[in-house]
């Protein structure tokens, strides 16, 4: 197990390398001159030329990437934004906590409401309750988050003045963004929970436990749910990862300084150091989240643990394991 964790952490390095290189290549390929963008419109061509050389943009693309890499590896220096010349590390440090909070709390909110709904729906499968509740969950997922955000701001902030319309420091400020962003995770959690529970409930061992005389509540919560937990956790992990870099719209509407906004602005300005710094940050978080989920997976399910021990951890990733559990129909 420890070996597996260490291998995964070590694997982070080549992952980050590849991710940063891919992103660099992609953004580099996009039209637009970072030097001219850094200077702003109205700059003279002469000044742009000087800036290009200053930023090293006249060197070949590979050279530029390795220059960046060298600074990161040997000096822990992620460079400065092309535009503002403010250190990339400083900016990321300022934006990152907000994103972490936003993504974490939204997913937590989603899970908090979605899981119980899913459990209840699975227990009363095909009943009106099941249909009704799942339909509500679906609706939460069917509206784009920003529409929900706009409408909620309109109602709760502007018209009713109950809640603040922006910011992210106090509890009341956090309520709206988390609700808006948490709708989709909630719906997905509910569906995943329901589906996973359905799989488990029909297993023989559940029937056995019931026959043994355990209370229904204990059967559901203690036995069935625990076994259904893994795919649910995986989904939560996925949702969290997606929100880390992808909450741009919500961040814009609620004026939350988050990584999503930072990345979009950086890409728009072709601010390569800032883009790279942001992406490395996001990729690291996603990788660590996946690792934690995998470890949790192994800890809870002895069958999975055995597989880890056998295979040495190389080719396994959590989704294989979900599918092996047979959550989706064969």
């Amino acid at each position: 197990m420890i070996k597996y964790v260490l291998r995964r952490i070590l694997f982070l390095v080549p992952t980050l390398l590849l991710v940063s290189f891919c992103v660099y290549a992609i953004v580099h390929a996009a039209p637009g001159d970072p030097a001219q963008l850094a200077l702003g419109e109205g700059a003279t061509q002469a000044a742009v030329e000087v800036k290009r050389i200053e930023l090293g943009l006249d060197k070949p693309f590979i050279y530029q990437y390795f220059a960046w890499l060298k600074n990161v590896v040997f000096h822990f220096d992620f460079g400065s934004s092309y535009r503002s010349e403010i250190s990339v590390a400083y900016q990321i440090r300022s934006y990152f906590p907000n994103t972490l909070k936003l993504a974490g709390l939204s997913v937590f909110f989603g899970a908090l409401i979605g899981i119980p709904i899913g459990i209840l729906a699975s227990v009363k499968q095909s009943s009106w309750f099941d249909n009704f509740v799942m339909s509500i969950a679906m609706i939460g997922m069917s509206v784009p988050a920003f529409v929900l955000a706009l409408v909620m701001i309109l109602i709760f902030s502007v018209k009713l003045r109950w809640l603040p319309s922006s910011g992210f420091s106090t509890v009341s400020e956090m309520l709206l963004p988390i609700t808006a962003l948490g709708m989709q995770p909630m719906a997905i959690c509910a569906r995943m929970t329901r589906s996973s529970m359905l799989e488990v409930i029909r297993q023989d061992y559940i029937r056995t436990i019931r026959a043994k005389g355990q209370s229904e509540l204990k059967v559901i919560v203690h036995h069935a749910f625990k076994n259904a937990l893994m795919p649910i956790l995986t989904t939560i992990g996925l949702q969290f990862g997606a929100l880390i870099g992808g909450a741009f719209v919500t961040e814009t509407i609620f004026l939350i300084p988050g990584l999503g906004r930072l990345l979009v602005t950086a890409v728009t300005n072709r601010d390569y150091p800032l883009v790279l710094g942001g992406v490395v940050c996001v990729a690291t978080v996603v990788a660590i989240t996946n690792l934690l989920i995998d470890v949790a997976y192994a800890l809870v399910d002895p069958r999975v643990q055995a597989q880890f021990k056998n295979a040495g951890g190389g080719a396994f990733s959590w989704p294989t394991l979900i599918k092996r559990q047979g959550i989706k129909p064969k």
Partner: protein
Amino acid sequence: MADIDKKARDKTKIINIFGETNETWRRLKKNKTAVFSLFVLIILAVLGIFADFVAPYSYFEQNLHDLLQAPSRAHWLGTDQYGRDILSRLIYGTRISLSVGLIAVGLALFAGGILGSVAGFYGKRIDTLIMRFMDIMLSIPSVLLALAIVATFGTSLPNLMLATGISTVPGYARLIRASILSNKEHEYVEAARAVGAGDFEIITKHILPNCLAPILVQATFGVATAILTVAGLSFVGLGLQPPIAEWGSMLSEARGYIRDYSYMLISPAVTIALTVFCLNTLGDGLRDALDPKLRD
């Protein structure tokens, strides 16, 4: 002799699929919401296909003197900031939104299918290589990827489909890989090999059909997600060239008018929500109908 066997085998397979389909349909029918959703989706598709006949106005005709009209007799859903009829634009928008969704999913399914099949079937090194590559794709924020693609290649319809679909490829790859892995060891695969079937034939003719269920389900969700993604991209400014009508662009254009002309936002929002809801419900219903464990 072998020919007759093959024909018999094929016939049995067809009957099986037909029988399965029948069975699936019967079970699906029990889920009233799912059937309703299917019905709605079919209507939407028909409206989109016959938009030229159904829509009262064109989707690009501007009327600079009839701007921002609230819903009325002449314009059932009102007009937008250029004086274009919103209802017509919604109807024409069905084409783009549904096709972007379907093609984005189709492309992702195709690419993911190939990657997942190869990874699952051949295993070991190739498997690790492909799956790690998928992990890397997942680490790149999808908005970023979409931004970069559209910035580089332009905002045409195909590029939008690419941008929407590309970040879902790892998901399909994993799904198909998992299905292949769990079916790989079954007897019929060995039987097929014994008769001399090649790898490609085994994968496409024998294994994949058994994975149809989860793929189908995931795909319906995928279309729904794609529609929402396009709406989100329009928000970031990656919309289609005007005056193309597309629900997501209509939504993002209506953003500035939400206070005094809220009907501009409501119509596309409700349409998107309805479509996505129906797709999701249908997907759920399909999954229930196809799940062998749930046979009563």
